[in-house]
């Protein structure tokens, strides 16, 4: 045992580790086991628990609303990958050009939304989107583009796009900073040679910078996918999954089932479904990305 100058006994190690293990087992491991157990029951929180075997799972597989919310998750993920990865990449191009002034200021400002609470963001954007009192419609009106005025959060056709905008807005900063630190890892000489060879502006970005940071981009896409699988707070505040079920996502669906319809057994089944689907998607994206970590 390296460093064991204090004659630390095995018992001491385990005693020292036990609080952390206890917390972790109590909050993560036991609930996971319990949720598997409860997923075999019909239960609404009262004393009546009915064993139904695999019925809940059968119901889950046939549950159009659940798969609809999964589809919404996927839709949001696609929009967010485009927005959260694409916009920062374009911004990177501006950041590495020499003409941009006040880089530090831009970075600081773009990063601010990242530290805000999702609840605050949700409310703020509800006010931006509000039909009569919203900033967005006000701006459209003052630009005399009345044709574009929408009831942003109440129109089933566009609500998914509306709720994705704040998500993208909030996290642009994270990805910008990730990409910038990757770009700083590129030797200056490489960029200079590229410039001498005539790769300037977006050409430099497209053919020199992007390939060099492609691994970082892959990691960022994975982060983006796993991050948006669990989107809940924003949607809970802005729409609660509505109108109807048009902006329902999986976490919201599990919440609604368990705490508004009190189907705790089925809620547990949905939780397992979420875990399985998220894990699969994350693994799949890692495989496709070919990343080793």
């Amino acid at each position, binding site marked *: *045992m390296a*460093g*064991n100058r*204090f004659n*630390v006994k095995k018992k001491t*190690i385990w005693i*020292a580790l036990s609080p*952390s*293990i206890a*917390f*972790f087992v*109590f*909050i*993560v491991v036991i*609930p*996971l086991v*319990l*949720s598997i157990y*409860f997923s075999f029951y019909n239960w609404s*929180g009262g004393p009546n628990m009915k064993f139904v075997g695999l019925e809940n799972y059968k119901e889950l597989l046939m549950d159009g609303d659940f798969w609809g919310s999964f589809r919404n998750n996927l839709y949001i993920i696609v929009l967010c990958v485009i927005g959260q990865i694409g916009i920062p990449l374009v*911004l990177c191009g*501006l950041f590495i050009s020499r003409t*941009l002034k006040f880089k530090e*200021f831009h970075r600081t*400002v*773009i*990063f*601010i939304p990242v*530290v*805000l*609470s*999702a*609840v*605050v963001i949700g*409310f703020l*954007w509800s006010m931006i989107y509000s039909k009569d*009192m*919203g900033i967005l419609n006000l701006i459209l009106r003052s630009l005399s583009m009345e044709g574009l005025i929408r009831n942003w959060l109440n129109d089933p056709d566009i609500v998914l796009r509306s709720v994705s905008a704040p998500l993208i*807005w909030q996290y*642009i900063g*994270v990805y910008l*900073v*990730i990409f910038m630190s990757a770009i700083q890892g590129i030797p200056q000489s490489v960029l200079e040679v590229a410039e001498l060879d005539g790769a300037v502006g977006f050409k430099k970005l497209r053919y020199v910078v992007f390939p060099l940071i492609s691994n970082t981009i892959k990691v960022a896409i994975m*982060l983006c996918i796993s991050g948006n*699988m669990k989107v809940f*707070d924003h949607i*809970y505040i802005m729409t609660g999954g509505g109108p109807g079920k048009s902006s329902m996502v*999986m*976490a919201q669906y*599990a*919440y609604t089932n368990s*705490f508004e319809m009190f189907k*705790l057994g089925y*809620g547990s089944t*949905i*939780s*397992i479904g*979420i875990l399985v689907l*998220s894990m699969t998607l*994350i693994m799949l994206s890692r495989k496709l990305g070919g990343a080793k970590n």
Partner: protein
Amino acid sequence: MMIFSLTCVFPIIWMFYSSLKTQKEFSLNIISLPQNPNLNNFVEAIRIGKMQNYFLNSVFTTIVSVSIIVILGFITGYFLSRFTFKGRNILYILFLSGMLIPVHGLLIPLFIQFKTLHLLDQRLTLILPYVALGLPLAIFLFESFIKSIPVELEEAAFIDGCTLQKMLFSILLPMCRPVLSTIIIMSFLHWWNEFPFALVLIKSDKYKTLPLGLANFSGAYSTNYTQLLAGLVIATLPVIIVYFIFRKRIIQGMTAGAVKG
């Protein structure tokens, strides 16, 4: 670029100055600056919305959680990095999995468990999940940092007659300052803003944290935009202040945590 950055931050600036307007002023013109800035909305938010109550709950929950996360994370990180023992790798993987598991899958089972054990809706309720879910990142940051500190240092301390506890807390912990501050700041931001667990595990007004209190506030006073804005500002101000003080470290910590996790 300037326009882009300003568009990015405008909603937040708008939130701040609009919270100083009266309701009437707000409905006349949403975007205009306040004519006579006043703090009435804040007074009302505190009087009607009991914001100070939520604020104190958030402060309490966050401080207790972060302290426990730091202490346990440090001890666990130390033993995992310095000793090889049976079960060490399994433990390591167990904690690692805590960073990968989508926490929303835990909400409902955790609610059932807490309900059965009568742990719902108490002052310490939220601290349990916050600590458990905050631990993995702290453990890994401590573990990898302690690995980079030479063992000889501990040996020297031992020869000088230092006990294990004393060595840990008066020699090693101060040496971990860079990673320590990252963990404190990141955990603070994360648990100050946390919403879904609070939503599921807390029911009574007495123990609600700010995000939950806000969600509630809007339900009861949905038309009073300026008061809601004042509430949002109360929840946001501490975070913004912390952000501007520790900007560099936060940006660093976010990317490090993100790339690792």
